[in-house]
């Protein structure tokens, strides 16, 4: 255990952890949204993220950008970023919808038991990630240096870079927008209605299938954004990138209280930061173990996560 190291690096570990946590949080939203409405662990959500992380690379590759390109001008960077985001969002959103249509909807029609959903989700996840694995020959795909990290401000030994700020701010903004959407808009009301009581929502004229599709789409959009941020931060993607980060995102969702949007944000940020602290304290090899230990401990105290589960599920 390296306490002095942790204290010395507390600032930097916090900021890098927050950046990672923000990505995890955006990713976790998809799990939470689907769970909130369908009470289903959408195992295939990790592949929604995965395809997003490839989509932006394909678009950038189309413009001749690769890991060895020089960083373009600011205007071009903004353009590329937007293009990449759009591509990732579209692909992730469509993937999420596709998974819902191919893997889940037929089961719902047949009134299948909950376990069956979990298993088709696993099947879909395997299918997508392994297909990507075969196509890419399980090689990594590297990301062009669109944003060259530069310090924006420095506090002590904590260097806060432009990329970190972009990731954290974007995550918070998206979270805010989504929260607003769910709580204020008409469509959002539909989502909450279905989440609270699917049957009576249907009676009140809410189209359940539409709402479910919408929820998958929203989760996909967020995963798409998370995927672009991930690419920029980590620098490569790989066929199993979704699976690895997906476990963390799912952990974060449960940690915060699955089905609860703010819980996902809290869980993601907390997980990102605490993983870094644990890595500082015990060594990087214990990073993932720490997140699970944390999860178990929190669930022992609060069996439904930190903020409890609710997607508009009002508790009396």
């Amino acid at each position, binding site marked *: 255990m390296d306490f002095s190291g942790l204290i010395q690096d507390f600032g930097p570990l916090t900021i890098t952890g927050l950046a990672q946590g923000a990505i995890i949080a955006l990713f976790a939203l998809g799990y939470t949204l689907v769970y909130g409405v369908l009470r289903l662990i959408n195992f295939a959500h990790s592949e929604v993220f995965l395809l997003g992380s490839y989509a932006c690379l394909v678009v950038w590759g189309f413009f001749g950008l690769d890991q060895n390109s020089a960083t373009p001008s600011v205007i071009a960077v903004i353009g590329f970023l937007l293009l990449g985001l759009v591509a990732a969002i579209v692909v992730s959103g469509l993937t999420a919808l596709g998974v819902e249509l191919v893997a889940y909807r037929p089961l719902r029609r047949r009134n299948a038991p909950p376990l069956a959903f979990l298993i088709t989700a696993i099947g879909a996840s395997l299918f997508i990630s392994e297909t990507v694995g075969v196509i890419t020959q399980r090689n990594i795909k590297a990301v062009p240096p669109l944003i060259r990290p530069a310090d924006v401000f420095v506090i002590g030994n904590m260097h806060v870079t432009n990329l970190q700020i972009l990731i954290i701010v974007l995550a918070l903004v998206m979270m805010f927008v989504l929260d607003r959407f769910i709580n204020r808009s008409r469509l959002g009301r539909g989502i909450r209605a279905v989440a609270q009581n699917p049957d009576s929502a249907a009676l009140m004229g809410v189209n359940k299938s539409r709402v479910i599709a919408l929820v998958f789409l929203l989760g996909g959009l967020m995963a798409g954004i998370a995927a672009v941020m991930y690419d920029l931060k980590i620098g490569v993607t790989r066929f199993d990138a979704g699976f690895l980060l997906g476990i963390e995102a799912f952990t974060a969702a449960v940690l915060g209280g699955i089905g609860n949007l703010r819980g996902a944000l809290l869980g993601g940020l907390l997980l990102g930061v605490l993983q870094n602290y644990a890595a500082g304290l015990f060594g990087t090899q214990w*990073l993932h173990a720490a997140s699970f230990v944390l999860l178990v401990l929190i669930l022992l105290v609060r069996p439904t996560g930190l903020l409890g589960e609710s997607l508009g599920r009002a508790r009396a």
Partner: protein
Amino acid sequence: MRQVFARAISGLAVIGLVAGAAACNSSSDTGDSASGGNCGYKLAYFGALTGSSANLGVNIEQGFELAINQYNEKKGSDCITVAKFDSQGAPEVAPGVARQLVADKKILGIVGPPFSGESEAADPIFEEAGIPTISPSATRTSLASNGWKTFHRAVANDDSQGPAAAAYIKDTLKATKVFVADDQSAYGAGLADIVKQKLGTAVVGTDKTEADGKQTDFSAVVQKVVSSGANVFFYGGYYQNAGLIRKQLTAANWKGTLLGGDGMKDAGLAKAAGNAAAVGTIVTCPCSPPEKAGGTFVADYKAKWGVDAGTYSDVAYDAANIFLQGIDAGNTTAEKMNTYLSTVNYQGIANTYKFTETGELDPSLLKVWTFKFDATGNQVADQEVKVS
């Protein structure tokens, strides 16, 4: 119920059809075996072709297959058949595949297994069957002390590469602050432990990461490296993690030198990190630069496979050629081949190969070179490291 059976049967039928097609393919291979002198035999590659360690395995297999193709071209026939056995690099898969391999009595020699773990699991089976193996990359020291007569490795074990890396850091880089980390693989940890031990007080910090493909965010390691004030970072591990770490180190504005073993000697490192970040990264390798040996291996490989030769491709190429030379010399049983290996003295592109009784390379012929990543992502021979 009946539907289930119907489905199950039709499923089996599909599998059967595919299998039948495959069986036809493979049986046609043996047609023209009689043409050249010692033809109709097989050499096997045993190692990962799929799974998470496939990339390393594919490097090796392609080097191996290139050698046999060139041999067959020279002979003008499909004299020697390539047999590939995919172990996924996994110890739990290896025994079953190895048993399948030993059932094929035409196999005279095996290039592989690439990893130490699968070697431990599969080599007893090869030993029992008496088929000689040459591993291009299993560097665990203890493998040679099992008393296996069929075991050979065409690469120096961890004990010789580690000291060389440490000597290079001390003598050439003259670094006084070194950070050492590894990926907890038997190979990476073994290497890092020796480096740590040899460098002593110059090591200002250590850490461990998860293995390739298990971790992508290295913020914590990077931070520790930066905070430690080290100007050299030795990483015991493979090129994917190393590339990622190099990229994230650069992003954190760390300007020191990343150094590693032969597991990082792969274009994949520069691919992951980007050439700009990878420049100056140094890898040690218990091998000589291929261009030193003359020949056209590098170009041939690129021409054949469309990619650059990777880590251990050259060693695998040499290993295959050792076997082929043995076949030319009339060693057409596994037993004879094994005896031949104990006497071989082969000048290959990566090394000169002479095996000791335990299957290790003759220490007196071992050379360790360093290679440096240049601005185009190639690994350029730097210098030979003398371990004092």
